[in-house]
């Protein structure tokens, strides 16, 4: 290969180490073989780390396997795990907790995110600086965030309780955001919203900026009220973006584990025990591997199915 005059790249290094004979052969490759050569490693990795384990999990889901007792004779028990899960009241309770979490976080994040986007879109001075500030929480590690919010939520010494009591007069030690059954489900919604409302905001902002000015100018010529302009121009034009944000948030929050595990770890009782936390308990504390594999498959099918249906709807909205 000829010496390159731009800084050495990854591919350069790989190419330099390729034996000449192989290099010659590679050089003569057709586009078609290059395409496969380029795609194959990624697909192979995904097959090995994602698909093979998934198939393994499907197989295990029909067994009584317990990974802490690998020598126990493996029994195929058919659909018994699936039946157990679908008739287990704790699982249904967990699904309700998950639904509460997903629905409320999305509702709040859409309202706050869209609201902020509308305001930022007015392009007041310094808006780009403040946008960056608002975006920070969503880039941080959810686990570390969950952990430090437990500090902020300490009843006596925590900043959160103090601020609430400062503004409302409620004594700071009279309520516990993490320890109380009636508050904990809202605590996880609150922290998730703090983290992810900026996400919805950023996507909505892109939607707002995609609306050409002339549409508003035409509306103004027709003397459409600002209210009317919002409902017949802004909202429909931003809708595909908003729906995309909702899709991503819904998938992520349905899978939610890290932040909530560190914030409340499912407690108190099981009031914040999301599906993923139940799954972790079953798989890595009770070591019911077969059972938890079946639950994992059910969760995957739910996400996958719901996401597919949603994308179809989204495409319809886009085409309008």
């Amino acid at each position, binding site marked *: 290969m000829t010496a390159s005059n731009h800084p050495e790249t990854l591919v350069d290094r790989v190419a330099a180490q390729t034996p000449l004979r192989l290099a010659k052969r590679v050089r003569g490759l057709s586009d078609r073989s290059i395409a496969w050569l380029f795609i194959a490693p990624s697909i192979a990795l995904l097959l090995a780390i994602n698909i093979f384990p998934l198939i393994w999990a499907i197989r295990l889901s029909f067994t009584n396997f317990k990974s802490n007792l690998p020598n126990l004779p493996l029994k195929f028990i058919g659909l018994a795990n699936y039946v157990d899960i679908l008739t287990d009241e704790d699982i249904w309770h967990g699904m309700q907790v998950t639904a509460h979490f997903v629905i409320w976080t999305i509702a709040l994040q859409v309202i706050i995110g869209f609201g902020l986007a509308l305001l930022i879109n007015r392009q007041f001075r310094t808006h780009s600086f403040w946008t960056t500030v*608002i975006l920070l929480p969503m880039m941080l590690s959810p686990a570390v965030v969950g952990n430090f919010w437990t500090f902020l939520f300490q009843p006596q010494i925590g900043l959160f309780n103090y601020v609430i009591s400062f503004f409302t007069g409620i004594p700071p030690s009279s309520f516990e955001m993490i320890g109380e059954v009636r508050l904990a489900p809202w605590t996880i919604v609150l922290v998730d919203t703090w983290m992810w409302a900026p996400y919805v905001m950023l996507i909505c902002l892109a939607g707002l900026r995609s609306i050409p000015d002339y549409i508003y100018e035409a509306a103004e010529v027709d003397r459409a009220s600002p209210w009317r302009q919002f409902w017949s121009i802004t909202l429909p034009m931003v809708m595909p973006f908003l729906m995309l944000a909702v899709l991503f948030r819904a*998938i992520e929050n349905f899978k939610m584990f890290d932040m909530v595990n560190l914030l409340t770890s499912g407690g108190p009782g099981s009031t914040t025990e999301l599906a993923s936390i139940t799954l972790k308990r079953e798989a890595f504390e009770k070591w019911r591997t077969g059972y938890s594999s079946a639950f994992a498959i059910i969760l995957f099918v739910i996400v996958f199915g719901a996401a597919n249906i949603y994308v179809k709807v989204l495409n319809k909205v886009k085409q309008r």
Partner: protein
Amino acid sequence: MSAHAAAHSIVEASPRAKAFAGAVVILYAVITIVPLLWIGATAFKSPSDSISYPPKVFFEPSLEGYVNLFTVHSRQTPEFIASLPPAESWWEKLIRSHNMVYAGPSKVVPRFMNSLIIGFGSTFLAVLLGTLAAYAFSRFRVPLADDLLFFILSTRMMPPIAVAIPIYLMYRELNLTDTHIGMILLYTAVNVSLAVWLLKGFFDEIPREYEEAALVDGYTRLQAFRKVVLPQAVTGIAATAIFCLIFSWNEYAFALLLTSGQAQTMPPFIPFIIGEGGQDWPAVAAATTLFLVPIVFFTIVLRKHLLRGITFGAVRK
């Protein structure tokens, strides 16, 4: 738009509307940032200041949190401490002033190194594989391309715990549990889907004419890829790499379940930083600050590409 039109533009918000928007957004931003600033401040508090009521906004800064984070120490009687040779460094003096003796470095540095090794290792591999695959998807007619791309994306829909169950068993068989290479492979597999989708978007934006001209000039496909396309895609590749790095850096579920010592990264480690009698909050805050600062920096660097990264390239702007 002409100057005249701009002056009367109906799209431009009125000054009063702007002021209102600015006030609300700034208020929200300040509320949003207070918890982060509080953590940064707690890192510089003494343990007693960190748990005082009411919470102290003004306090005498102390490096105890950082010292406690990086060292292990044990409580001793004042007589024993008096019998020791005098402390050599400022931090040893600080430890002794609490009737403690320095007993060695803590695990935070190895954990931080693990985060770096696994983060950079998986980022490098994911970007390498992702660049190749994305180029192929962008430029060649790959049979079933849409299905393959969707397949790549769908691997992201599995809850991490669901993936971890079989991975845990597989890694146990292969002796990959709690190893750097095991974690690197796992994070690469997760990141590759993001890398392919993002990079395909970046490659799609580079006009094909450049390569076609190079092909006419006698370059082979691979040379054209290397010398014409890659230099054009550098920004996109860098942005993708940062997104992959942030994912690996922040990841918790896999790290919690698949590592215990050797290859443990920071996220599962930080919650277990404890002092005498419960969590040592200044030390936890110090670790959290050190851990979050690189991400804050990257977020600022990435501002322009953030949107793309978080939507898998679905929104490009």
